[in-house]
């Protein structure tokens, strides 16, 4: 489907979901030692899969701008302080969509469901690696700590993102996944 | 009725199927021929899945037919060059009030259509003012559009269509979420538009609403099952019931009284008409006085 109006609207609506997840705290899942896993980047991945890489860039920009705003106006967690720097909050997020889209396009022919799952993982890891990389390059955190966070937070986030991406896109495109029929 | 004049919208041999989501394409329209004339008020009724909304979306080129053609004036809806002309001539009001608001303030939302037509800012101001005036929303210009009530949102949607200076407005179940007052206001607005020469096409499940139209078109499985003025359509109650529909409540009562009331002229479709019919019948037999002191003039002539 190549409808420019739909691209604009889906970008706006997915951007709104990302902002909503942040503002309502639905997007944070409590995790080890008070740190939280986030799924605010999932709308970016889903938008990119449905409407292409540029839509992903746009949603990523909204996600990034909002985490910058949240870091500045109403920080909720300690890490929010770093996100007032656009090199941490915005720049890395622009690439989530395109990477997720590439993964999806590359694998779609093989298996739709696998492509969705891997696209979710790829998009999520893009977020983890680039944001933490920016924190490292800007010398906000030592690389050892960054490595630990990448494993303890990045991996479960990737799994959550994959599950959610598959569930949403499969339902939207009416693709049956796994079992044929209910478990009742 | 204005059948003598050239039709505003002309649909001929319309076929359309939905593809995707199901193994087989699902046919929605199967050979529809229909004309809408300037100033005409047409109600399209039918059970869920009968193709009403699909048909409506062909009238402003939101959908293009698989086979057959739709013309608005002399523009074929398949020709992309006419898209702006067609859609500005045929405005549309949708079912969900929230889902059709584009801008965050009332005036900007009304301006959205004419902005797309490239109207200059001074003329835009005038169009916004006139359109809001026509639906009784003057003074709401700078209000947040999402903070309006559902009824006001639907009137905003009408203003947004009017600002494009259309010849026809389509209503897709536009009253279904409104409360009685909001619904009545919207229906009155529709009637007023009509009397100003605009064509109105409305899709509805409410037969009382359909009874207000000049013409009722009944769809069944993507085909026109019946059409005509409300009285002639609602006279065939059994046919409607078989199609999963019903008649307006007063008509239904009249049908059940059919053995006892001769219905001098035509079957009633409003409460007033039914009451007149019953009263007339009794007066005829001298049961009540001919001139009635309690009646301050009938509700209809």
């Amino acid at each position, binding site marked *: 489907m190549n*409808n420019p*109006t*739909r691209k*604009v*609207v889906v970008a*706006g*609506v997915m*951007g*709104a*979901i990302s*902002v*909503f997840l942040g*503002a309502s705290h*639905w997007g944070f*899942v*409590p995790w080890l030692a008070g740190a939280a*896993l986030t*799924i605010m980047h*999932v709308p970016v991945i*889903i938008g990119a899969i*449905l409407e292409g890489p540029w839509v992903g860039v*746009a949603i990523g920009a909204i996600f990034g701008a*909002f985490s910058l*705003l949240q*870091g*500045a*106006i109403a920080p909720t967690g*300690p890490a*929010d*302080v770093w996100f*007032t720097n656009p090199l941490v909050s915005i720049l890395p997020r622009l690439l989530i969509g395109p990477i997720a889209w590439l993964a999806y396009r590359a694998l779609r022919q093989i298996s739709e469901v696998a492509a969705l799952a891997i696209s979710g993982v790829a998009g999520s890891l893009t977020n983890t690696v680039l944001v933490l990389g920016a924190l490292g390059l800007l010398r906000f955190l030592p690389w050892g700590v960054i490595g630990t966070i990448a494993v303890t937070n990045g991996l479960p986030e990737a799994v959550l993102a994959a*599950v*959610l991406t598959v569930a*949403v896109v499969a339902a*939207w495109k009416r693709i049956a996944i796994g079992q044929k029929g209910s478990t009742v | 009725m204005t059948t003598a004049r050239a039709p505003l919208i002309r649909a001929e041999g319309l076929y359309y199927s939905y593809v995707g989501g199901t193994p087989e394409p699902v046919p929605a329209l199967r050979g529809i021929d229909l004309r809408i004339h300037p100033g005409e008020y047409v109600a399209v009724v039918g059970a869920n899945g009968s193709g009403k909304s699909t048909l409506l*979306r062909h009238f402003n080129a*939101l959908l293009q037919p698989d086979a057959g053609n739709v013309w608005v004036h002399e523009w074929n809806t398949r020709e992309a060059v006419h*898209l*702006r002309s067609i*859609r500005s001539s045929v405005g*549309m009001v949708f079912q969900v009030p929230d*889902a*059709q608001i*584009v801008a*965050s*303030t009332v005036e900007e939302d009304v*301006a*959205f259509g*004419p*902005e*797309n037509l*490239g*109207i*200059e*800012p001074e003329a*835009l*101001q005038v169009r*916004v003012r006139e359109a809001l005036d026509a639906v009784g929303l003057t003074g709401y210009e700078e209000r947040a559009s*999402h903070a309006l009530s559902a009824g006001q949102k639907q009137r905003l949607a009408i203003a947004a269509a009017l600002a*494009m200076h259309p010849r026809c407005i389509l209503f897709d179940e536009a009253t279904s979420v409104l409360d009685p007052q909001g619904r009545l206001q919207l229906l009155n607005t529709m009637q007023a538009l009509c009397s100003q020469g605009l064509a109105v096409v409305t899709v509805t499940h409410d037969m009382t609403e359909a009874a207000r139209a000049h013409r009722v078109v009944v769809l069944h499985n993507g085909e026109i099952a019946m059409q005509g003025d409300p009285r002639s359509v609602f006279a065939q109650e059994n046919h409607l019931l078989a199609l999963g529909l019903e008649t307006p409540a007063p008509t239904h009562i009249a049908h059940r009284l059919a053995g006892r009331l001769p219905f001098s002229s035509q079957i009633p479709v409003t409460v007033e008409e039914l009451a007149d019919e019953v009263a007339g019948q009794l007066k005829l037999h001298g049961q009540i006085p001919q001139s009635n002191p309690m009646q301050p003039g009938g509700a209809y002539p």
Partner: protein
Amino acid sequence: MNRPSRPSEFELVGRVTIGQYLPTNSQVHQLDPRAKLLMVLLLAIGVVASDSLLGLAILLGGVALCLVSARIPLGYTLDGLRPALPFLLLLALLQILVIPARGPCLRTVWEWAFFSVTDRSLLAGAVLALRFVVMALGISLVSFSTSTTELTHGIEHLLRPMQTFGLPAHEAALVVNITIRFLPILAAEAERLLKAQASRGADFGPGRFGLLTRARKLLPLLVPLFLISLRRADQLVEAMEARCYLGGKGRTNLIQLRAHPRDHLAVLATSMVVALVVYLGSIDVEGLILSSILPCPT
């Protein structure tokens, strides 16, 4: 942003918003949104490009002055900073104690075991904290004094010159606009979903913190939220197309932004201050001052 007052268990509507517009109708509010956006952009450049404590203090003074003239109550501004302060102090402390300072001449102020505190590390700690405070206040100022509608118009107009380079300015502004428009709708839908599932026996009470439990509860909420949003998106696409939207080409605009002399003046003044601040950083003004007072230890 959601204000920290105790909402009822399921209340989302009205509590999930972007920004926190306070219409006091001050001079700052009346500035052209484009001017305000440019100013905050300049501020960001100054904050990132300069590591001069003096420079950042000047910027802080400037922002504070604007906050006062915008008649934003002090409590509102501090509300936003408060949650970040403890962590900020911790970060600054880490910077001071752990991260080795660099510079041509380091004067040790305090030493204990592995820790050594130099004048430079003290400066670096203060700069780190101040950077955040200045940026946070600057962004708050814009969000307090600019409505979201003005903001989208500002973005569209600012990006317009970039259209010649292929950047879709109109589309970008429309995306932002739709995001803002959809937020209250989403909040309402989310609240409905939450309540409907609670009505069917789901337990969203506090104290259930396991990742799996939480994720299992989130999925039945998020999947319909996405699906409802995508359906709404389709409906909005239809509504826009029905109103002749065929992309940004040839569109006119009801709202015309007009820049006044005061807008030009404000941007000009900001650029001069930021230039000064960047200059102060580039000559290492603190180093110069310190050297003029204290000799460099060898």
